[in-house]
């Protein structure tokens, strides 16, 4: 054939074919997307510490293990309340003159997805400890330690953020462990990672490939098994699997007067809206509200905590919890 004897023809044809396909499957959809996608009304571009934190996230290569995309499949539901959409990424633009746009969607989940981690794990204390050495809070974690984002000071000033790391992780370090500016910025970025609610009236895209067994699990959500799973997913990273928490950071639930006592209202309030009454411990964030717990889930967690680690609190029913939750909600709106 002539084309295979004529290098000009051959390579021009191949190059043109490739260029055409490139245009139709990469460049054109990309341009189209830029033209047609606008950021969600409630989204704001990152600024200040969070933006600086994102730069650290990029330079440390966190994207190698953490994705930032909730796919529209049921198994991704644990990472966000709705599937991600193009609009979620629309206000991300070129990082700098030297660096390309960083949507940080990622291709690997050696660690969990972080799209909504600002809702799931917003605690400053936890995040700092976790960055200093992930194994302080999650024993089995294989995430690297980011020791260089911290320094030690013999006499930290008032403005220093001291991190109460268990002594066995401080081998060879003297003084108090203090978070550097970079660590705080990185945590600010992590805290800023939240799924933005869709504007009222717009249809939320659904998760595909629902598991059929899920339905039966939900109808019977006050069972012990469910409570344990909820505890592992939402509470264990701070209060630990043995319920003992971490000294100087997260209080023990084992033998806790709140867990075992009769003040159910306080108990539910803490789960839903967080707690910051004891200076020696870190601040607990509004886990229940962030994760949109219902009364079944709260009751399951309470019952699990009251029956584990030698605790002997009495069991509660979802109805009791519901009353208190409604009451707390009224109180909260009144306070606003």
């Amino acid at each position, binding site marked *: 054939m002539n084309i295979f004897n004529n290098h000009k023809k051959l390579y021009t044809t191949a190059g043109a074919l490739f260029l055409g396909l490139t245009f139709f499957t990469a460049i054109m959809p990309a341009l189209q997307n830029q033209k047609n996608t606008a950021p969600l009304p409630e989204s704001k571009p990152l600024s200040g510490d969070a933006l600086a934190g994102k730069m650290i996230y990029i*330079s440390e290569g966190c994207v190698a293990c953490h994705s930032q995309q909730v796919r529209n499949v049921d198994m991704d539901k644990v990472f966000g309340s709705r599937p991600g959409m193009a609009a979620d990424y629309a206000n991300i633009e070129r990082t700098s003159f030297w660096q390309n746009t960083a949507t940080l969607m990622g291709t690997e989940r050696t660690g969990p997805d972080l799209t909504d981690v600002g809702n799931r794990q917003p605690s400053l204390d936890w995040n700092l400890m976790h960055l200093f050495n992930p*194994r302080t809070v999650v024993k089995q974690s294989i995430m690297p330690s980011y020791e260089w984002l911290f320094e030690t000071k013999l006499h930290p000033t008032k403005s220093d953020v001291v991190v109460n790391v268990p002594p066995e992780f401080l081998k060879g370090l003297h003084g108090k462990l203090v978070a550097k500016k970079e660590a705080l910025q990185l945590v600010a970025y992590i805290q800023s990672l939240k799924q933005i609610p869709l504007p009222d009236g717009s249809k939320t895209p659904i998760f595909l490939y629902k598991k059929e067994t899920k339905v039966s699990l939900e109808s019977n959500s006050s069972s012990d098994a469910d409570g344990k799973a909820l505890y592992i997913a939402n509470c264990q990273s701070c209060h630990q699997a043995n319920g003992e928490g971490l000294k100087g950071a997260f209080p023990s639930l084992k033998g806790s007067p709140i867990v075992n006592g009769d003040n159910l209202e306080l108990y539910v309030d803490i789960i839903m809206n967080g707690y910051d009454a004891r200076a020696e411990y870190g601040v607990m964030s509004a886990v229940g509200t962030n994760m949109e717990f219902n009364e079944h889930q709260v009751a399951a967690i309470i019952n699990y905590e009251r029956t584990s680690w030698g605790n002997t609190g009495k069991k509660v029913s979802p109805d009791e919890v519901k009353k208190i939750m409604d009451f707390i909600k009224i109180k909260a709106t009144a306070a606003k």
Partner: protein
Amino acid sequence: MKLRLIITTILIFYGSTLLNAQEANNMIHLENSPPTATFIFILFIGLFLAIIWHFLRKFKIQVSLEKKWGKETTAQRFSSYISSLNSNQITEYLKVKRLLRSKNKPDINKGMSTIILILFSSLTLSAQNNTNPEKGLFGQGGIIITLILILIPVLLGSIFAIVKAINAFKIYNNQNKLQDSKQFAENLIAIEDEELESTLLKRKAALDYTLSNYELSGKNKAEDTIGIIQNASPDHQVHFTAQKKKAIPRPSLDKDITKLILWYLGCAAFWLVLGGTIGEYVGIKFVSPDADHISWLSFGRLRPVHTNMVFWGWASLGIIGLGYYVVPTVSNAKIHNIKWGWNALWLINAMVIFGTISLMAGINNGGGEFREYIWPIMALFAVALILTLLNFLKTVAKRTTKEIYISNWYIISSIIFTIIIALTAYLPFWQNGISETIIQGYYMHSGVGMWFTLYTLGLLYYFIPQQLNRPIYAYSLGILAFWTQILFYTIIGTHHFVFSAIPWWLQTVAIVGSGGMIIPVVAATINYFFTFKGQWKKVSNSYTLPFFFVAVMYYFIVSMQGTAEAFKFTNLLWHFTDFTVGHSHLGFYGIITFAIWGGTYTIVPRLTGIEPQHHIVGAHFWLAFIGLLFYAIPLSIGGTLKGMMWMEGKPFIDSVVMMFDYWLWRAIGGSLMFLAHFVFAYNFYKMTRKPIAEIDIKEEAIKHLKSITGN
């Protein structure tokens, strides 16, 4: 025959149990019904039966032999003894015969068969018992393991018992034979037959006859008029490894181009050793996350250092270096400009050095895989590619052959495409928001498939026919594969982001295109393998062809695996897991790296005239081959289990804990690969070192003579 029957029964049995297991449990809940455990169990039973059967057969043959022996009449037996006497025996016999005379008659014992029967039947009984374990418990892993463990001593005991029985039987029969021999001796002495004796004497003469070894050559001294005997080596060594064919000397190339190619391949080998070492360290971090707390060595920074180093440093330099041999050779022309080649070499090396330092310092492009180098660094690569393209194009333009050989379609197109890919990936006009991800999918996919795979396929189109010394099977299949590869491969990049927020039509195109990839992959694989057809012996005789064979095999396996991974269900199962890491290593290592190795071992001996030691090449091959399997198989299994755990909604940390063993195996496989790189580097050094000249005394003496006579 019987063995085949047993195997078929096992297969049928296995198939039916597997079906049962699937009916009983949902496909996804694999851990409740371990068909793998069942399979191993049945395999074990099969093995068990086969071994027992083998020993029983041996036993039976023994018994039938002895039976035959028992049935023959004494006269028959004795005459057959006589006719098979050897020379020594005849001499001895005749000697004795002359001295002695006397008479006797023999009788033989029968029996035994009852005992054998009892033994035999009891053994078959026990074997049957073993094949019928209780079916209800079959699914239980613990029971299966216990049964296997119990069966091991049972098997060994049975073998021991059978061997003992055979021995006892032999001893018994030996006694019979001794007695028989006594009778035979007496019988021989009794015979008074002159004729027999003369026959025996004749027979002895015949038996004693030997050749003198001079029948053909005569006893005169050989006159070596054409120099054959001089070249024969009387040195016969014991070979511990397979003998490989020596490289056939080829016309040597220009010194300049030789040096350029060797530098390309040498730099590539250096980056392979370094990049592999970093990869090994990164792999170890999965099982030992506190190995260091140094920012420059942290996982997130080192991972792209590893991937980019082996991409641009090892593979890109490797394939371009081989291209500098292949492109001019198949064009039958000299390379257009050697200096451009050197410039491109330094540019790419500089790119890898700067890129590595910047990534370790925490400066990267923003997170797209393989797009981690910032644009000023990547620009070095673009310039190097343009230089290479012009150089190759001008060489092809100067070709003295009419047609453009298929290697050059692939190689040059691949460079053209890669320039387009790099520009598309780094130009900022279409990168905002999720467009960055659309481009990323296109880039990371085409970067692998259009740069490395397409180029390597071109190299294989030269090396495989050349090493087999026969033309490629079908040009037309090559044409089909070439154009369909471009058509389908370009459009499927988005399959790395299925179910993401990328437009659904684009994802659909990618999935459909991934199916279409069957056409170029099958066409190319057929083309290569049919070139091998009928020449398989050459593969085992060669130290280069196994590398190419592995490359073709993985080309088929990995590409088809890629198609399977693009489907929707497999995306649920495998996306984001370590399965993809296994897949990418199978592809990049199995196809590209093996092909470059094969190419290096083919052309470097031609360039330098020094062959590597064949058995060290073999060590390299097997370390890399086995290492890759140890690397990829655990990651594939672990990745699958991980995906299943995620689909079931298990807590994330559970999947991390579960992966530990698989990551450990990966590190072990990685270590073998890591060793293989050092062996390769050693071989490369051996092939390229300047040899200390062997002094040929005769040659020197002639020189000396010449200098004396003033010539």
